[in-house]
């Protein structure tokens, strides 16, 4: 397939997954802000922006991290390339470019989301509850994903879409977990407190994984169990283990179909092996924030390798 087509498919997946995560971040933020506020410490909303790496661009444009501004920035702002509106628009535009590589149903799902987005943008903000916005995003992200799974040929295009999904999702899970780091930064003695548990639970809830977590672990919510669930557990759909396994799988399928391995497959396997060999104790030893930061950097290196091997069209 054309390198440009593969590139567009890969980015459709990344944008959709990113929009989904941004919606989940908004969910985390609003729920955390419902608990009695921790006076004298940085705002929870600010920690959320820190985790996404968008704190500076937000501060420049809006100043104070109050909820309404955060909503504007993360949902509607076209100047923010990671806002829901930007991501949905870019995904639909990429879909339009590669319509021949998509089924009517996938296109329909992308296009419907875009048309509804335009209607939302015309709706007075006073009529838009945050929960309505976040649910709307998750619903449309799921519809696109479902249409892909139900109708697309299992060819290289399908693999590149999935590579985009897993890459973005792994990266985003790491960033969502990092919100915890920024929230907790001011006072280490909060660890293990009721507040701490509430925050962890909120995080799980935002990932739609609260009940799944209880089924898998039962009993009390602890930092160690959650780290295990979100990083190491292959049953968890968003865990770093699941994402790296998905990457290895789909990149393996590409290599098999083309009869040729590249440096990208190597890097994916290294990433997966590292996660499989890790333990919660070792991760906490290194420091959760440090571990996640390292993971995010490795994912970026892998993305670069994928780009060079398949998407840029530069190899001969």
């Amino acid at each position: 397939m054309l390198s440009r087509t593969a590139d567009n498919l890969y980015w459709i997946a990344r944008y959709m997954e990113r929009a989904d995560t941004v919606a989940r971040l908004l969910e985390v933020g609003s729920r955390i802000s419902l608990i009695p506020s921790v006076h004298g410490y940085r705002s929870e909303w600010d920690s959320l922006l820190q985790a996404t790496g968008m704190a500076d661009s937000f501060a420049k444009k809006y100043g104070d991290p109050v909820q309404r501004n955060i909503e504007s920035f993360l949902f509607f702002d076209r100047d923010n390339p990671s806002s829901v509106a930007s991501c949905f628009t870019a995904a639909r535009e990429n879909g339009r470019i590669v319509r021949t590589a998509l089924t009517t149903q996938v296109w329909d799902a992308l296009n419907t989301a875009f048309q509804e987005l335009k209607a939302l943008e015309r709706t007075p903000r006073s009529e838009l509850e945050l929960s309505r916005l976040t649910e709307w995003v998750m619903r449309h992200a799921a519809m696109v994903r479902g249409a892909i799974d139900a109708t697309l040929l299992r060819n290289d295009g399908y693999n590149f879409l999935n590579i985009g999904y897993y890459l973005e999702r792994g990266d985003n899970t790491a960033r969502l977990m990092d919100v915890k780091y920024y929230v907790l930064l001011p006072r280490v003695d909060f660890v293990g407190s009721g507040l701490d548990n509430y925050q962890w639970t909120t995080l799980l809830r935002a990932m739609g994984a609260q009940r799944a977590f209880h089924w898998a672990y039962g009993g009390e919510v602890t930092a160690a169990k959650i780290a295990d669930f979100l990083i190491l557990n292959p049953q968890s759909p968003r865990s770093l283990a699941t994402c790296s396994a998905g990457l290895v799988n789909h990149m393996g399928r590409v290599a098999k179909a083309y009869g040729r391995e590249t440096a990208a497959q190597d890097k994916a396997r290294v990433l997966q092996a590292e996660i499989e060999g890790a333990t919660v104790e070792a991760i906490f030893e290194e420091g959760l924030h440090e571990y996640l930061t390292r993971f995010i950097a490795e994912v970026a290196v892998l993305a670069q390798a994928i780009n060079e091997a398949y998407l840029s069209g530069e190899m001969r």
Partner: protein
Amino acid sequence: MYQGTGVRPPYARLDDWVAAMPQELRSLKQAEAEALFRRIGITFAVYGEGGDPDRLIPFDMFPRVFAAAEWAKLERGIKQRARALNAFLVDVYGRGEIIRAGRIPARLVYQNEAYEKAVAGFVPSKGVYSHIVGIDIVRTGPDEFYVLEDNCRTPSGVSYMLESREIMMRMFPELFRENRIEPVDGYSEKLRRTLASVAPKKCKGEPTVVILTPGHFNSAYYEHSLLADLMGVELVEGQDLFVDGEYCWMRTTEGPRRVDVIYRRIDDAYLDPLCFRPDSMLGIPGLMDVYRSGGVSICSAPGAGVADDKAVYCYVPDMVRFYLGEEPILKNVPTWQCGKSDDLKYVLDQLPELVVKEVHGSGGYGMLVGPKSSREEVERFRAKIVEDPGNYIAQPTLALSSVPTFVEEGVAPRHVDLRPYCLVGERIELVPGGLTRVALKEGSLVVNSSQGGGVKDTWVLAE
């Protein structure tokens, strides 16, 4: 549709259909049709009129109908014309016999902006320059057809022919059960066969065909992607292709893959920055060298535009006689060339009665419809003609036929034209149908979508 007091035979059944359709159902169906167009994402500004790539063109549910015998005559006339136009192109890039014979002025050809010196002396694969010939036709009487214009470069709008049919079949299946309507869905297969049949000599085995688009901002992008999809070929942009050695290649996830036939939907000027416009970002550097050495076929061939100029148009009937030794089946609209002093005098005298067009204009822009214009507009146009007469041609306003069309109040006659798409490769063929454009404003003669025109499904009835 109506003839005297009765209904013309091809429309007989439709008359009953309309009579039996209540107003509410009609509105419902119209809304459904528009929703379908929007959902599928069929957006278009037909004939390269530019504008918003997301704009929808109005769709009229009342089909336009041709009887089998009417179509048979049209088909013969169109194929004949397509053959003559291609013979002309091969000739003027070769020995120029028609010019030596004094049948067409040399300056009209060699000083024409669309004449590409870069391909002089070159004969493309199978001797075809224009592979998709779109001929715009109007009807003025029961058995009288006139050609308004030939389009030899990259005529657009065929997606409307295909999608209008698709939507009509979905909404009114009973019409297709009751009437014997010739299918148009063989178009993409014929197009693919046509393109493959002109693969270059150096190509061995199954040729790789691609469609070259300027990109998704182009108003006809939907059509480009639909055709690629229906044919199962890659839709490429200039950046996806490159030249290496004697061939043209595309960048794929598996490495470079050779390309044999390029159905380009970009203008000559943008094809190759080394040969034409150096600032073009759309084209492929070095493509013309590969083309001229037989490494790749370009459809339509660069330079084909010299045959569809509005000034050259006047000579097409002569081309038919000169190259084919036949009498033209389809007539030209009588045309005055303002560059000729006698014609100019006549045009200036009769200006309020005439339609005047720019030689290179398109899309209903830069034209004067005399009878529909104010005195002031006529005078303004007169000044433009006097300033540069060679840039204008004039035609009488024909008594254009009209066909029934759904309007606010019910059904009313509206003027239409027709563009069938003739495919020229190893053989010449066309599907029974075409793009019917309709002027939705009462009395309007202009069918361009930029001027309030819409489209209809075009039916050819089986014997």
